[in-house]
Each structure stands twice: as structure tokens, then as C-alpha cells.
């Protein structure tokens, strides 16, 4: 029991919650503009791979840049397909996730000759514990990004127009403002967040493993939905999910009678419960998924 009341536990909760919070915010940036973003999983995985490849080839900050770029590429494909060609966003999102899974597997084989994991990269060498976490450059970036989002969305002209695109695009178009451009910008901004989530994952584990995002992108989507598509609320729900996962990992480590597979199932079951509305019913943007 004392394991849960320690600073180490708080650190692990935050550490686990960061990618969920980042991806949930990234999804929000896309969906508030009206573009359904199922591809968060792919953006995260791409970000993770880009980071490890960049670290492997040059250094840690090249890795961060490469990871963000990789996430942006996936977001760009989403924009091209959905905003540019008018393709179905959900099928496109799932296809992108499959594509990224295949491409990262291909890259893994090509660069490291392995089907399961890359070599270890040093990444960030920071302090341990709570102080080490809050001074970690990526953590600072995360907090800044998530804190800036409600301001950007609610208090700038861009944010207002983006939200209008998600609620009533016809009204926006009638003003002569480009709905497509705003939706593209929102989705690309979201891609930065989701890519950073992947970078954090890979930096945390110091390597890339096959399919390492493991459904986190979908869990983040659920967090975004449960948070009512509101910028910081999604991050708050993500923190709750992080707490649940940290509890599960601690329980696993302590060796209770509960089988590991059932414990590992917990995040996904919790997500299902959240979707079903145990955490409250929410309202999506009115024009979400519509031209």
C-alpha cells in the first residue's frame, strides 16, 4: 500500500500520462476543426520511430526533430486524404495506422535487421525522480503545449475560426475564409502533439519496439472524447488513465494473485467504460466528420 503513496509513484503516473495527454490534445486540435482523427496511433508510432532513428544517426535533438517530422508526415497524409480528396476520415485513419505499423516494421528490419526492436539509444540523460521529470525538456514542452492550447483555441482569431469550422463550416465559408486551410492547420498542429507523444514514449524506453504505441492513440482518443473535446480536460482524463495504468503496473510488480493478462487489460477496459459514458456524456463539434 505504501508503494502508492510514494514520490516514485507520482513520477510514474506523470511519466505514463504524458503521451496520453499529448495525443489527446493533438486529437482535439484536429477534431475541433471538424476532422475526425483516428490516426493518432500512427502519428505516435511514427514519432517514436523518427526519434530513435534520429538519435541513432545524429543525436538526441535530431531525434526529436525527426520524430516531430514523422508525426507531421502522417498528419499531412491525413489532411491530403480527408481535406484534400474528401475521403472517409475513419477508414483513412485506420489505414494510416496500418501503413505506419508496416513502414516502421520495414524500417526496423532495414536499419537494425530486427523484427522486434532497435538498438538502445541514449536519448535524454537527465536527473532521476520528480526533479528530473519536471526539468526534462520534453516535459516542459508538454506542459507549455497543453497550457497554451486553451489560450490559442479560445482567445485567438485562428482558434475562433477553427472552432467555427468544426461547428458550422458553411458560415465560415460564407465569410470568404477557407475551411480547408483551417482544418489542415489544426490537424497539422495536432500532428506535432501526437508526434511528440511518440517521441516521449521512445525516449522513455530508450529504443523502438515493434508496435510500441500499443493502442495508446485510441485510448487518447477516448480521453479526448470523455474530456468533451476541451483542451485541458482531455489532458486531465489522460492523467486519470495514467493513474490507472500506473496502479496496474505497480500491482503487477507486487505480485498479487491477479493474472498479468487481466491486469494488462485494465487500460482498455477503462477506456471502454469511459466511452460508454460512465465518466459522463459529452457533445462533439457539430460538424465533426462532415464536409
Amino acid at each position, binding site marked *: 500500500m505504501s508503494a502508492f503513496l510514494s514520490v516514485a509513484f507520482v513520477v510514474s503516473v506523470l511519466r505514463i500520462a504524458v503521451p496520453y495527454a499529448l495525443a489527446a490534445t493533438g486529437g482535439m486540435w484536429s477534431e475541433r476543426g471538424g476532422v475526425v482523427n483516428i490516426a493518432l496511433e500512427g502519428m505516435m508510432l511514427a514519432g517514436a520511430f523518427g526519434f530513435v532513428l534520429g538519435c541513432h544517426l545524429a543525436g538526441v535533438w535530431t531525434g526529436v526533430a525527426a520524430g516531430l517530422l514523422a508525426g507531421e508526415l502522417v498528419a499531412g497524409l491525413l489532411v491530403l486524404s480527408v481535406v484534400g*480528396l474528401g475521403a472517409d476520415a475513419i477508414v483513412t485513419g485506420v489505414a494510416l495506422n496500418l*501503413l505506419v505499423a508496416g513502414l516502421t516494421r520495414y524500417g526496423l528490419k532495414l536499419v537494425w535487421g530486427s523484427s522486434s526492436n532497435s538498438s538502445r539509444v541514449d536519448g535524454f540523460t537527465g536527473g532521476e525522480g520528480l526533479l528530473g521529470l519536471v526539468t526534462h525538456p520534453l516535459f516542459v514542452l508538454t506542459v507549455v503545449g497543453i497550457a497554451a492550447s486553451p489560450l490559442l483555441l479560445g482567445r485567438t482569431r485562428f482558434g475562433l475560426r477553427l472552432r467555427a469550422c468544426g461547428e458550422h463550416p458553411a458560415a465560415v465559408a460564407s465569410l470568404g475564409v477557407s475551411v480547408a486551410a483551417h482544418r489542415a492547420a489544426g490537424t497539422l498542429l495536432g500532428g506535432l502533439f501526437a508526434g511528440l507523444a511518440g517521441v516521449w514514449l521512445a525516449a522513455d524506453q530508450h529504443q523502438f519496439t515493434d508496435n510500441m504505441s500499443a493502442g495508446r492513440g485510441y*485510448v487518447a482518443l477516448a480521453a479526448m472524447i470523455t474530456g468533451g473535446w476541451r483542451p485541458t480536460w482531455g489532458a486531465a482524463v489522460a492523467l486519470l488513465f495514467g493513474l490507472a495504468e500506473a496502479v496496474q503496473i505497480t500491482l503487477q510488480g507486487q505480485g498479487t494473485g491477479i493474472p498479468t493478462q487481466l491486469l494488462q487489460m485494465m487500460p482498455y477496459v477503462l477506456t471502454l467504460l469511459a*466511452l460508454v459514458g460512465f465518466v459522463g456524456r459529452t457533445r462533439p463539434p457539430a460538424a465533426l466528420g462532415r464536409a
Partner: protein
Amino acid sequence: MSGAASWEHRWVPPVAALLVAAGAGELLAIGAGASPLAVLEALVAGTWGNAYGLGQVWFKATPLLFTGLAVAIPFRAGLFNVGAEGQAIVGALAVGVVGAYLPAGTPAIVAVPVCVAAGAGAGAALGALPGWLRARFGAHEVIASIMLNFVAAALANWAVASFLAEPETLHTAAIVPGASLSRLSAWSSALTGSAVNTSLFLGIAVLVAGHHLLTRTPLGLSLRAVGLGPRAAEAGGLPVGRLQVLAMALGGALAGLVGVNAVQGHKGYYEDGFSGGVGFLGIAVAMLARAEPLLVLPAALLFATLSEGGLAIRALVPKELVDVLVGVVILAVVGAQGARARAAR
């Protein structure tokens, strides 16, 4: 979608998808330092070029017939069945368990249908769940299905590891002899060594039945009506919610039949990790087949050829190339469909 649509409207998306995929494949092959032509030659020689390869192609196509249709039928009703992977797992587990617990002397005429029904039933239950969650609670069925994929895999893994597995193994007990399906190599020595079996015929029969259902029955018409316009359908008096759940249950049942091939036709038991992405490949198959049951067969054969060919070309390029092509095909099809739909507006 069909009928009044022009010839080019129907065929441009799949053809465009194949061209884009071929182009992507070439780029990836060059990236790996191999000549695209050499890769293509090796691929064809290793699959349709010899009897064993051909048999393996048809063996790998069999589960894709089931999962392809499992995605296609809900798609015609306006739903996206992303849960085919999990439905295949529970279906196969059901086949394996029921098949093992039948009395030892059960004749094939009883054992085979009972196992098939078990697989279909388990898959249908898992398939209906997201549909019901959406109808009852408004839960997002795509995310729910993906979560259920993870949950189903974890539960199956736990059940096998805890109490269903034979000692020292990761698979269930063997099914009774009456339940197993014979390999086609028993009829034609040319196919010796390949695992293609009589469940292939079940797959083809199911495609024909699916086509008949959608085009010639009132239920099929209702499902298509819901897919083309749920609010209009509701105004017309159709029970949209119930039809959606039924469509998902049908999809789940079809995905569950993967177990008939994997357990009854191949291994004779349920083994952890057998599915290998067959549910997601089914999405690609259904997209390429434009969600039309009869077109699922050529689409499944194409992906089975790529999959088997991936093994044949692994000396030249990583077999993961096939995984990439799957995503490329789906993207290309859906992008081309969107572009055509926009051009038509």
C-alpha cells in the same frame, strides 16, 4: 455504389489503388537495394508458379474470404467493423474448445456443423457488442471495437495459459477426429504439403450467400438502405438500431469462421497468436472489393499472393513490405473513392 454508377466510377478506385501499391512496392524494393523486376519475378515464381505455392495462396486466402466479408457486410450497412481481429480470435478459441470437448466418437456430420456454429456464435457475440454499445450508449464503435480486440486477445491468452492449454504447450487439446476437415492435398497430389483444406469451399459458399443476401433478400435491402441513409431509412420505418447491431453480429459471425480454417482445417487445436493480423487484412480486402461479396474472392487472392510471396522474396526485401502495401492499398482506394465522390457532386 452500384447500379446507376458509371463503369469508371466503379473500377477507377481499385485499379488506382493497385497502381499506387505497385509503385510503392517498387520504391520500397529499391530502398532495400533490390531490383523491382527481380522481386516481382521471385514473387510470381514462389506463388502461382508452383503447385505448393498455389495451394498455400489458396490456404492463406481462405481466412481472408471470411474477414473480408466480415468487414464488407457491415460496411454496406454503414458500419466499420474494425473488430474482426478479436472476433476471429474468440471464434477460433470457441471452435478449439468445443471441438476438444465433444465426445470422442462424434461423427463428422454432427461435429463439423457444431464447431462451425460455435465459431460463428462466439464471433457474433463479440461483433454485436460494439454495435449494441453504440445503439444504447452512443459509444464510438470504432474505438470500442479496437479496445475489444485488445481485451479479446488478452482474455484468450489468459484462458489458454491458465486452464485451457495442454501441459507444456500454448495450445488447447486436439479436436475430436470427426470435427477436422480434410486437406485438398488428399484429393490432388499436386497440392501435397500445402495446407489448403475444405473450409475453402465454406468460404466461397459464404461469399455467394452474402451476395445473395445483399442483392436478393428484403433483409439485405434493409441493410443497404441503412447504409445509404440511416435517417431516411428510419423515416421509412426501418428499425435502424437493431439492423446495425444485426449487421455487426453478422460481421462478427463471419470473422469467427476463421477458426474453421485455422483449427478444424489446419492445426487441429487453438494456438495463441495464430491470427497474425488477419482481421486487419480483411479491411484491405473489403476496401479493394468495394464491399461487394463476390469481389472479395479476387481481392483475397491478391493479398494472399502478396503474403505468401512475401516469404518467397525475403531473400531480396524484408517481408514487412507486404504490411506496408496493405496500408497503401486501403489509403489509395479510399482516397480515390473520395475524389470521385467529390467530382460527382
